[in-house]
C-alpha cells in the first residue's frame, strides 16, 4: 500500500476517473450499437430508439468533456501537492517524471480532451442538419475517444501505483536543465535554431490557415506544437521565471507566476486543437471559419505572450538571460 492512496486528492481523482470510466463503457456500447444498426431511412422501432440513445451519447460526451477538462487541472495541482511527500521533488515536474507513465498520461489526457471537443463541434453541426450527415464520422470520433479514455484509466492506475515514495526523484531543474553534455532539444537543435523554427512555423501556420491548405496546415500545426513545447520549456519559460536555470513546464501554473501557465498552455493547446479540428472538419466537408479564426487568434496570443515576456525582461534589465 502506497501512502499516496491516502492523499485526499488522489482518492477523489481516481474515484472520479473510475466513475467517468463507467460512463465511457456505457457510451462505447451504445456507439458500437449505432455503427452496427444505424439506418436513418428506416422507420422501425429500433431506429427510433437509437435516435433517442444518440442523445444519451451526446449528453455523456458533454459531461465527459466538462469533467475531464476540470480533472486535468485538478490532476496537475494534485501532482504539485504530492511533491511534498515525494523525496527530491520540488514541483509537479519531478512527480510526473517519477515513472515513465506520467508524461504519457498527460499527453493522453490532452488528446482525450481534443477528441471530445472535436465530437462536440461535429455534433453541433450534425444536429443543425436534419439528416445527421456526420453521424458515422462523429461515432468514430467517440469510439476513438472512449478507447483513449480506457488507456487513460489504465495509465492513471499504473502511474499512481508505480510512484515510489522512498526513492528520490529529480527536481525540475535537473530534469529539464542541461544534463551534463547532453542536448535535451529534439532533432539536435540549439536555442537559436529552435527560436528561428518557432517563429517560422508560427508564420507558416498562419499563412497555411489563410490559404486553407489542409495538409500543410496539419503538418505545420503539429510541428509547431512540438517546437513550441520545447521553446517554452527551454527558452521562454526562463523569462517567465526570470531565472536562466529554471526550466519547467509546470511551475508557471502556480500563483507565484500569476497562473500565467494556464493562459500560455491553454492558448497553445486550444489554438492547436481548433486548427486540427478545422482541418479534420473541412476534410469531411465543413469549412468552419470560426475554428480557423479561433486557432489563428489563440496561436497569435500564445506567441505574443511568449515574446512579451522576453521583451519585458529586456526592457527592464537591458540584457537577455
Amino acid at each position, binding site marked *: 500500500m502506497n501512502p499516496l492512496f491516502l492523499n485526499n486528492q488522489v482518492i477523489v481523482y481516481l474515484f472520479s476517473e473510475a466513475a467517468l470510466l463507467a460512463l465511457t463503457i456505457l457510451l462505447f456500447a451504445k456507439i458500437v450499437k449505432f455503427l452496427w444498426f444505424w439506418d436513418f431511412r428506416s422507420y422501425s422501432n429500433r431506429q427510433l430508439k437509437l435516435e433517442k440513445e444518440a442523445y444519451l451519447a451526446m449528453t455523456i460526451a458533454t459531461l465527459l468533456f466538462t469533467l475531464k477538462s476540470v480533472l486535468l487541472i485538478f490532476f496537475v495541482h494534485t501532482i504539485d501537492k504530492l511533491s511534498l511527500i515525494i523525496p527530491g521533488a520540488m514541483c509537479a515536474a519531478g512527480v510526473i517524471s517519477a515513472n515513465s507513465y506520467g508524461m504519457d498520461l498527460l499527453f493522453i489526457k490532452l488528446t482525450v480532451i481534443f477528441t471530445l471537443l472535436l465530437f462536440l463541434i461535429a455534433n453541433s453541426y450534425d444536429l443543425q442538419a436534419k439528416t445527421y450527415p456526420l453521424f458515422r464520422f462523429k461515432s468514430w470520433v467517440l469510439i476513438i475517444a472512449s478507447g483513449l479514455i480506457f488507456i487513460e484509466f489504465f495509465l492513471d492506475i499504473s502511474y499512481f501505483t508505480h510512484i515510489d515514495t522512498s526513492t528520490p526523484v529529480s527536481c525540475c531543474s535537473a530534469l529539464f536543465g542541461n544534463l551534463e553534455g547532453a542536448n535535451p532539444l529534439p532533432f539536435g537543435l540549439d536555442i537559436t*535554431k529552435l527560436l528561428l523554427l518557432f517563429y*517560422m*512555423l508560427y*508564420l507558416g501556420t498562419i499563412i497555411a490557415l489563410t490559404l486553407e491548405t489542409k495538409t*500543410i496546415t496539419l503538418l505545420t500545426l503539429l510541428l509547431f506544437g512540438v517546437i513550441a513545447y520545447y521553446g517554452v520549456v527551454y527558452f521562454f519559460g526562463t523569462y517567465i521565471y526570470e531565472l536562466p536555470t529554471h526550466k519547467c513546464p509546470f511551475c508557471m501554473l502556480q500563483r507565484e507566476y500569476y497562473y500565467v501557465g494556464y493562459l500560455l498552455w491553454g492558448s497553445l493547446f486550444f489554438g492547436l486543437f481548433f486548427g486540427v479540428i478545422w482541418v479534420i472538419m473541412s476534410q469531411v466537408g465543413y469549412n468552419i471559419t470560426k475554428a480557423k479564426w479561433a486557432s489563428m487568434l489563440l496561436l497569435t496570443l500564445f506567441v505574443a505572450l511568449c515574446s512579451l515576456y522576453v521583451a519585458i525582461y529586456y526592457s527592464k534589465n537591458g540584457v537577455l538571460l
Partner: protein
Amino acid sequence: MKQILKILLTVILLVVVAILLLSVLKKDAPIVVVKGNLAQKPLPIKLNKTNDTECAMLIKTTRNAAEVVAPDGRTWFFDDPGCMVKWLESKPFKEQVKIWVHTIDTNRWIDGKKAKYGVKDHTAMHYGFGAREKENNETIDFKQMQLRIYRGETLANPKFRAKLLGK
C-alpha cells in the same frame, strides 16, 4: 496577394526543412553506449564527450574510469568503479560481461574482475574504490568491493567514512 503568400509559405517550409535536416545531420550528442565491440577490448574514452550511464555525469578523466562490455559487443562507460557495480546490479547479463578498469598505480586498462581495489581513494563519485593492479595490505578483491557497494559500506556513507578515515 494569394500568390505572394503561397511563395512565402513555400520559402518558409523549405527553410524549416533545411534547418531540421542540418540539425539532425550534425551529431553532437554525448556517447552513452558504443555498439559492435565484439572483441571485448577496452575502448579509448572520448573525454568530455562520454556520459557515465549510472550517474549521468560527463567522464572528464580516465583516472578510475571503467568500461563494461556485454557479450553482444555493446560497451558502456563509467567514471567510478562504484557506478559500474551499481549499474550492473540489475542487468540480466551481469555474469557474462567483460569489465575493464583503469588502474591508478600502473595507469592502464586491466580486467576489472581480477583487479584489486583500495578502500579510501579519491574517486569521482566518492565511493572510494580505486582500481589497482598490485595488491597491498589495504586492498580488497572485486567480489568484496561489489558486496561493499551493494551494502553501502563506502566512503559515501558518513559513518563508514568516519571509521575508515579516522575522523
